[in-house]
């Protein structure tokens, strides 16, 4: 087996089909180093949960290898994989108390009673639930159940912890609190975690690296800030954060800069060449709302466009301004709420501009 010992988990050319006609996972390759927090992010049906289930052993890979700690685990039964898992509905055993839930993985490993008690107490302390040991799961709040589920997945010291949209059922505030808590547990214990979510904010906050899934393929695998600042295709640019799109055609390329003729008659603009093959290709220009400059001073930026204000939504710290630019009517600009901010009106014509480096020419 040509496995690298530095990697805890390796997916090699993994494919999965349920019906023999369609591939749910087309060609999945990823290497996870020990102690990493990797997130699989994507819309539902993109294949991310299937990959997690294959790693946990509840689905079999149709082809390809899954390697855990240097061993191929394609034919290892789920209960022998030593992988902890947190489920979306927590899957806490309702007929057992919190302490019994935590003791379960230790009991099936035939540990001694005193050792079990000690480990259970330690795990409960870790998630600050030491006073709830004798409660039933149904007597706990959603956030507490979540913490018990996390503690249970960690209490037997697994090589790897999988989390399948664990925060999906919590309300917004609790979800944010739990994100930090899980992140801290990850840092404190140094345990390797593979996390699945469709919430990009969650992915950006928690992860070391994020694999963006769509249509059974990893669109981009990179750290959060690379994904946000340097998306390599239009899907990732759209999926991560807010994004403005302008469609056009490449007319010339000079080094890593290309000139693009905008579709709606907006004229010629410059963009960073990322994912275009050559002159004459269609392209999607991707531009973050906060990188758009309103009413730029003469010569401040090389790209200038005429825009018409369509809608203004006050958000306190900034005003979300929807403008129409070159035929696109959902172009968003975030105008920060600062002293010298001029007041725009609906229907007003303004000029907008941006730096060439902020505008990325991606696949159409």
């Amino acid at each position, binding site marked *: 087996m040509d496995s690298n010992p530095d990697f805890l988990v390796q997916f090699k050319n993994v494919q999965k089909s349920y019906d023999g006609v369609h591939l749910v996972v087309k060609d999945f390759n990823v290497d996870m180093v020990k102690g990493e927090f990797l997130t699989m992010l994507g819309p539902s049906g993109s294949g991310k949960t299937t990959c997690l289930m294959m790693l*946990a*052993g*509840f689905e079999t890979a149709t082809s390809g290898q899954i390697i855990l700690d240097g061993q191929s685990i394609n034919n290892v*039964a*789920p*209960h*022998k*994989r*030593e*992988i*902890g*898992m947190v*489920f*979306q*509905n927590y*899957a*806490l*055993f*309702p*007929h057992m108390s919190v302490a019994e839930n935590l003791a*379960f*993985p230790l009991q*099936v*490993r035939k540990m001694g009673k005193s050792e079990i008690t000690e480990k259970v107490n330690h795990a409960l302390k870790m998630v600050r639930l030491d006073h709830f040991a004798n409660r039933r799961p149904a007597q706990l709040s959603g956030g507490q159940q979540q913490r018990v589920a996390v503690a*249970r*997945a960690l209490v*037997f010291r697994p090589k790897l912890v*999988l989390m399948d949209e664990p925060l999906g059922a919590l309300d917004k505030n609790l979800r944010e609190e739990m994100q930090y808590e899980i992140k801290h547990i990850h840092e404190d214990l140094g345990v390797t975690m593979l996390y699945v979510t469709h919430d990009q904010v969650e992915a950006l906050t928690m992860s070391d690296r994020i694999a963006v899934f769509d249509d059974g393929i990893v669109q981009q695998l990179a750290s959060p800030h690379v994904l946000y600042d340097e998306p390599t295709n239009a899907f990732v640019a759209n999926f991560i954060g807010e994004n403005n799109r302008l469609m056009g055609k490449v007319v010339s390329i000079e080094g890593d800069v290309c000139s693009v003729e905008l579709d709606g008659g907006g004229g010629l603009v410059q963009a960073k060449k990322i994912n275009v093959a050559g002159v004459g290709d269609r392209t999607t220009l991707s531009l973050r709302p906060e990188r758009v400059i309103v009413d730029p001073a003469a010569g401040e930026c090389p790209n200038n466009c005429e825009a018409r204000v369509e809608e203004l939504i006050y958000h306190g710290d900034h005003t979300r301004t929807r403008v129409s630019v070159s035929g696109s009517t959902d172009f968003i600009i975030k105008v920060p709420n600062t002293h010298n901010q001029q007041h725009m009106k609906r229907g007003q014509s303004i000029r907008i501009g941006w730096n060439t480096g902020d505008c990325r020419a991606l696949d159409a």
Partner: protein
Amino acid sequence: MANTYSKVGEMTTNDGVPLKISLQRSQRKLKLWAFLLVAPLLIFITISFILPVVSMTMRGVENPQVANILPNVVDALYVWDGVDLPDEAAYEALVIDLTAGRKNKNIGKVASRLNYERSGMRRVISGSSRKAAKLKEGPYKEQMIKINKAWGDVTTWSLIKRESGAFTYSYLVAAVDYKITDQGDIVAKSEEKQIYKSLFGRTLMMSFTITIICILLAYPIAYLLATLPMAKSNLLMILVLLPFWTSLLVRTTTWIVLLQSNGVLNDILVWMNIIDDSGRLQMIYNQTGTIIAMTHILLPFMVLPLYSVMKTIPPSYMRAALSLGANPVVSYVRVYIPMTVTGIGAGSLLVFILSIGYYITPALVGGQSGVLISNMIAYHMQNSLNWGLAGALGFILLVIVMIFYAIFNKVIGIDKMKMG
């Protein structure tokens, strides 16, 4: 609002009406409407179920025969000490009552009523009433003793006195194989006369056996139903429900065809040389037949509650147990099965209670050893016409069912019971 608090702690509405009264008024219409919706069923149940149950239960303790047909005797015995034979007044009353009873053609009722308590009393009463009508004048004491020497026996009189009350516990005592002696003590009947206790025991044992078999058979089916894809589970569900759509009589008689000595199953076994022709198995008209047929009939009542509970258990629980390192068997036993306990409980309660009172199937395939207490109740209703004893047996059966229901409610909780 200034008048929101008229008194301390009592809320009122804006126009000064106490809030509670106002709330009651506003809800009165809803309550009336709800009651009207329930009313047809309530009336139906009352007439067809509650009243008959109460009436039969009352028959188990009611005792009108002696008091109504021998009223003068009862009056005369009121002051009797019960040690020596009663005086002339009692004999005179007896003659009057026997004559009147014969004239009104209801002397037979008191005859069979007293015959339940002591065999031979039917002959004593009927014979005496026939002869007493011919007696011209008193004193009657000597003449009556001459007609039947039972009237010279103190115990005959004490029996009549004992059963002269409006209510009696003698049926209930008889229903559990005890009897009341001439001295008024309650003692067990002699061994060979005990029937009901062993019949109750057999009914409980067979119901228990049927429940266990139903659990064992229904659990895998319910699991399959709950886990198979929709299209297949629907087909399987139809198979499970098929017995429900077939007449009970048809199903029971089909078992006779299959299981009887010259039936299909025996023929196959003989043909396969597993048994020889002389050794055909007796599988029907005994306990085996009753258990087989009743298990078949009651199986859906176990499958449906189990299925409805299992359907609500997402696969993540088993997966969680596996991921925590438990092997599939341990996961199933320690995680899955405990989560289905409510289903097992609900199904068991249904099957057990239904089989305790089952009548048709044991009557058809039970033979001698496979009949249940319900068949004995039916016998007393239809053949021996001892409705008092039938009522008492029925009442005891009802109490047993209630006890099991209470146990179930205590252990599992009736609110957790789900059907289909």
